[in-house]
């Protein structure tokens, strides 16, 4: 599609612009968080425990151990985004590749890959993640692995469905009759044509992964104390919901805004690249 038209649509799409701007804002904040944090996010200061927002330089108050919530929120965003980034990249690469192979070669290869991905799809993501994390123990590496294992099928299905359409296009046949190898055709001819739907899925999955990571951390199976994460911050705040509601509200709102931003971005991208629009 024409670049100009895409740009025009991007600017016009409210979903896209909102999602894009908020997402960029969140990313910048998390990159700059060491500079913006005015307290050590892991330093306990029991004297200052459960301070309300605004008191003694604690913009968003403190938690039950007297740690500054604003600083923890900023540091937590780094973990959430970084984990989401690593998970989405790994899952996208693995899933897309398997999907490409599955769709392109068909036959038994296809059946095998599709059956495996159906098995993964049939188990609820969170329950599978809980089971694996409980079995393997909690660590950032295990967390990433679990999230990749439970999310690659999305990309695999997407890539496969698109390949099935693309591989019957005559430009693929043209490559075949000029003696090009299968890898060459898959990666240089077919892949560039599925980048658009892939991009949309990636941005939607990004929000999704942040959410699942927060849920796992909330349950104590994700990021471990004292390292801050939005999920375990909410978990901490549960018991103080009536006395110190800011402990839950701050990470909760941050989580909601971030996830929403990436979902908007995904929906916006879909609108922008919709070939049916004239």
């Amino acid at each position, binding site marked *: 599609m024409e670049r100009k038209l895409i740009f025009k649509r991007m600017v016009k799409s409210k979903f896209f612009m909102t999602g894009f701007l908020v997402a960029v804002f969140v990313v910048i904040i998390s990159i700059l968080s060491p500079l913006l944090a005015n307290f050590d996010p892991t330093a306990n200061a029991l004297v200052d425990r459960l301070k309300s927002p605004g008191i003694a330089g604690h913009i968003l108050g403190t938690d039950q151990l007297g740690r500054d919530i604003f600083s923890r929120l900023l540091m937590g965003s780094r973990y959430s985004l970084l984990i989401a980034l690593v998970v989405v990249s790994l899952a996208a690469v693995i899933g897309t590749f398997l999907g490409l192979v599955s769709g392109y070669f068909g036959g038994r290869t296809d059946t095998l890959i599709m059956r495996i991905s159906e098995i993964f799809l049939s188990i609820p993501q969170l329950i599978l993640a809980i089971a694996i994390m409980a079995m393997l123990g909690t660590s950032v590496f295990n967390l990433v692995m679990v999230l990749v294992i439970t999310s690659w099928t999305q990309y695999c299905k997407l890539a496969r469905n698109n390949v099935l359409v693309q591989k019957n296009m*005559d430009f693929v046949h043209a490559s075949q009759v*000029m*003696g090009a190898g299968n890898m060459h055709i898959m990666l240089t001819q077919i892949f560039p044509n599925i980048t658009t739907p892939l991009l949309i899925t990636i941005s939607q999955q990004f929000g999704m992964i942040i959410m699942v990571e927060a849920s796992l951390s909330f349950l104590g199976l994700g990021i471990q104390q004292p390292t801050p994460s939005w999920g375990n911050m909410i978990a901490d705040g549960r018991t103080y919901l009536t006395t110190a509601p800011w402990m839950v509200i701050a990470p909760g709102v941050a989580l909601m805004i971030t996830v929403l931003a990436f979902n908007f971005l995904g929906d916006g991208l879909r609108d922008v690249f919709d070939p049916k629009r004239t």
Partner: protein
Amino acid sequence: MAEKMENKSRKPLLEVRHLKKYFTIPRKGQLHAVDDVSFQVYPGETLGLVGESGCGKSTVGNVIMKLHKRTEGEMYLEGRDVFASDADKDAFCRKVQIIFLDPYSSLNPRKTIKDILSEPLLVQKIVKKGPELDKFLEELCETVGLSQDLLNHYPHELDGGMRQVVGIARALSLNPSFIVCDEPVSALDVSVQAKIINLLMDLQKERNLSYLFISHDLSVVRHISNRIAVMYLGQIVEMADTDMIFQNAMHPYTIALMSAVPKVSVDKKVNRIVLAGDVPSPMNPKPGCRFAPRCWMACPECSNKTPELTEMEPGHFVSCMYARESRERAKTAATVSVEKMMESQ
């Protein structure tokens, strides 16, 4: 005529013998898309392959291009067995190329024209990226009359005719001697179609190319072909020199097909033979003549005995038991009545 006789004494460039392609359709049986087809194409010659949708003409092209695996049959390029295990696959790619029907799906929308045209050269390692490639592309553009400014454009910026020119240029880039043209002008408007046909004919003269020209359009096939093969349900029913087949068509299907085409003529006297019913699918075909259920001169015998492709006059092959009398009977054959149309359902 002298040229044609010379043709026969030469060796064929491409020879197809008893080619069969069956597709297995789950729970339905076997689709005999191509069922025992044999023909030769000589250097510098165009063989037109004509028929209606589902007659297997495109499948023949795809099997030749190895886009489909053959079920049975042999194919020889310059006398060498193409399907032999020791056959040089790259050499085949360089000698045999294809031009596709749809100029939209045949060019990758994400690639520039330059990428598209250089792909075969790079894949076959004929040239490396750099000035050598640029010079090659320059010459290629000149050959087909494509402006070099277009090289950095994307396919969607070109109209259908231009895209088809790019498709032709891509097929030519490996300097092949045989090109399968799979309905290359069917998706184009009349004025653009003429341009592409002229280009194909000029290139043929310049480079002594051979074409297998697949089309459903009789007038286009007549214009471009030296010889014509008419296909019906996976089989060649008639094959002859172009003039011979147009002046003296013998197979009842060919006669009906020719009469069916609406002609631009001021005098409105059309002696048309309208075939009843629809083109059936070649699914699990029964023995006997495949055209018999729609044939306007079918006898009970036709559905029992399978006719062979026989040489009725030098260079004119027909597969019909009553080929000798078909022209006489065509004069009196009436247009199919409504009642007959209903019967055939």
